[in-house]
């Protein structure tokens, strides 16, 4: 029995290969990432190129031509090209915002869980303060005060979405902290930094990744919401959220303007969420539910 079992990494791989959700969402995500990376090669037009005489052309399935497969927007820009470039912006915003949050939340959560006592109380307090502040409101206020560049929007969200990381990693670290291998490492003379790096972090990693995906989805949706309220990424930069916001003017008449980016956004967020669930199943099947 002992030799038959696989190492944790291989086990994960094996579970991943048999996990339908993982494969499906991974494929979709991979595709979107590829599209984002190779946007310049894939986009038929410059996404910023306006053709005022070709405004609001419908997509092919609504009687348009293959010249603009997804139609054009109110400025006569090719929707498909904007969609392709928009994948870049939306993905980047999601990734970086979630990344920044992850760093903050992980540091706080792990510190609280590992050191306990006063550190823990301070972190709990910070988490409470953070939770008490209405995210959208504060994000809106901050963006309106600081301006709506991609960097600012991303950073503001990064500074606001760390609470779940902190909460989950705190709990996970506490659990790991009480494990005897931590005490064993202490006994073997490992420094705390080494213990945190070698023993704590790898064992809370799966939680971290799962939350990372959730928060990435959250950030993308939040950015879309800010854009919708007019305080997200500023045009002409094409994020999918902004495209919906731009298209909402014509919602009742040319609804593809919001359907196309809306569905893209939905697929992306759906895939990320599903991927997160799948990662949890794959890395920590016992933690399912």
């Amino acid at each position, binding site marked *: *029995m*002992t*030799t038959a*079992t*696989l*190492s*944790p990494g291989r*086990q994960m791989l094996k579970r991943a290969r048999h996990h339908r959700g993982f494969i499906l969402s991974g494929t979709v995500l991979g595709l979107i990432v590829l599209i984002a990376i190779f946007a310049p090669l894939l986009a038929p037009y410059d996404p910023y190129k306006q053709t005022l005489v070709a405004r609001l052309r419908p997509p092919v399935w609504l009687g348009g031509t293959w010249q603009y497969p997804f139609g054009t927007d109110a400025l006569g820009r090719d929707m498909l090209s904007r969609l392709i470039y928009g994948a870049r912006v939306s993905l980047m915003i999601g990734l970086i915002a979630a990344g920044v949050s992850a760093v903050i939340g992980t540091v706080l959560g792990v510190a609280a869980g590992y050191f306990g006592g006063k550190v823990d109380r301070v972190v709990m307090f910070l988490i409470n303060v953070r939770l008490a502040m209405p995210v959208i409101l504060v994000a809106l206020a901050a963006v309106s005060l600081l301006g709506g560049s991609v960097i600012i929007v991303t950073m503001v969200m990064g500074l606001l979405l760390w609470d779940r990381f902190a909460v989950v990693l705190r709990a996970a670290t506490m659990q790991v902290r009480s*494990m*005897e*291998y931590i*005490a*064993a*490492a*202490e*006994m*073997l*003379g*490992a*420094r705390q930094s*080494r213990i945190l790096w*070698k*023993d704590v972090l*790898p*064992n809370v*990693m799966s939680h971290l990744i799962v939350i990372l995906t959730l928060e990435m989805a959250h950030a993308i949706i939040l950015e879309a919401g800010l854009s919708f309220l007019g305080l997200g990424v500023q045009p002409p930069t094409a994020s999918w959220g902004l495209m919906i916001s731009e298209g909402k003017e014509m919602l009742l008449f040319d609804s593809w303007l919001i359907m196309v980016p809306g569905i893209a956004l939905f697929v992306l967020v759906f895939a990320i969420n599903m991927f997160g669930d799948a990662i949890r199943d794959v890395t920590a099947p016992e933690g399912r539910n």
Partner: protein
Amino acid sequence: MGDTILTIRGLTVDLPKGGDRAHAVQDLSLTVGAGEIVCIVGESGSGKSITSFATMALLPRALNVSSGEILFEGQDITKMSEAGHAKLRGSRMAMIFQEPMTALNPCYTVGDQIEEVFQAHTNMPKAERKSRTLALLEEVRMPDPPRIYASFPHQLSGGQRQRIVIAMALALNPSLLIADEPTTALDVTTQAQILAMFRTLRKTKGAGIMLVTHDFDVVAEVADKVVVMQHGCVVEQGTAEEVLNRPRHAYTRQLIDAVPGRKADAARSENRNPVVLAVDGLEKIYRVPAGFGRPGREVHALKPASFELRRGETLGIVGESGSGKSTLVRAMLRLIEPSAGKIIVDGHDIARAPYSQLRMLRRDIQIVFQDPYGSLNPRRTIGDQLVEGPVNFGVPRREAMEKARELVRIVRLDDEVLNRYPNQFSGGQRQRLCIARALMVEPKILVADEAVSALDVSVQKEVLRLLAEIRDRMGLSMLFITHDLRVAAQVSDNVIVMSKGEIVERGAIASVFHNPQHPYTRQLLEAMPGQGWEVPDLSTLPPADA
């Protein structure tokens, strides 16, 4: 012995695909008569619990009875509807589970939860239910029944909770009582009381009892009949007297052989070596902060404790759960900050050492923990974890690896294991790896905190032997913490008895065990089950069955 209450014939329970084996229980047959205690023994995973769940029709969803019948008072349980089961459960047949801490719903008072039995099976008026419940509490010898009645589970101790569960089981005088390791989580004194209760029950109510256990002492204490299981099959059954003293099957013999002898190995001479560890007035007070939940309070988990350990000596520390054994060890190693006291190793005081120096001092003193699963980091290879110590103390990695290979061989594993991860090992193997890891830094003292409690008896025996061997070979001193007096007796030279955070008695193992001075020690020894049974000398028996 009266009528047969339960007859199980050819019971097979399938495991879901991908399990350890095809059947959890295979072709099992047994009977329980009125007023009879039938013990089911066997190693972990042998199918004991599954058998009892199947009888109660409480099998987990994933498992199914694929063949066989379970006749209870003439009816076949396996062919009954869920409603039929519900009607029997609690009234005609009842069950007690292993884990008293979680067996009760935390949201309701225990009175309420006992009354539920009456509510489910009778239409007694409320007042009568209450008086019957109070009477039951009395019967299971709870102090102050009205108070207990209104208590929530978290306000009771484990033993008390287990008695509540027993009260529930007895509420309607069932004819069959199934108890799945009802005392494993309890300390010996409570265990003794509960076992006594079973015996009374058999006598006064004439109920048949099916008792699942892996402890042969318990079997010896109460059983009329014994059923031995291995890998889901019954390998031997018979009267208690037969099975305990003249086991026929090889597996039964292996189990019995692994039970540590009650007598200490008297022969070890008095140790005059120099003192390697001196603990003086070590004390630990936990401050539970106020605010969240309860008022702030102090737990005096360890009252000032002093002792010495000489080179080559094995000092056993025994005491029931919560007596402060782990606290003592952890404070001694400064895994928790001691509140007061000195710990002198090599002339240095660990209690006062600054953190940088502490790292160096810990070299001399290493520990093996109780939980073989929790003490290895699942995300690092064995090799990486073994070289951790030497590398931290400045030994080059290559050299450390060399040493790891050697130690792995000493604990009788193949050096190929260094590239594997902990999940690829069984509990016993892991425990050996933990021992190897502790030895990597060449300590002078090895602390084993319940290092074998989580292991099956046969594995336990192997690890104990290995420890003793290494101790002798390397000239180690050992602190051996356990709640199992038999184990303590087997490995220690001297012993310390702890109760409520205090050392109540100490001395050479033989004198403490044969001539206990402190009332607590006496109580502890008396509570040990199976007093009347000595492990038979198996070598005198005829050759075993296959």
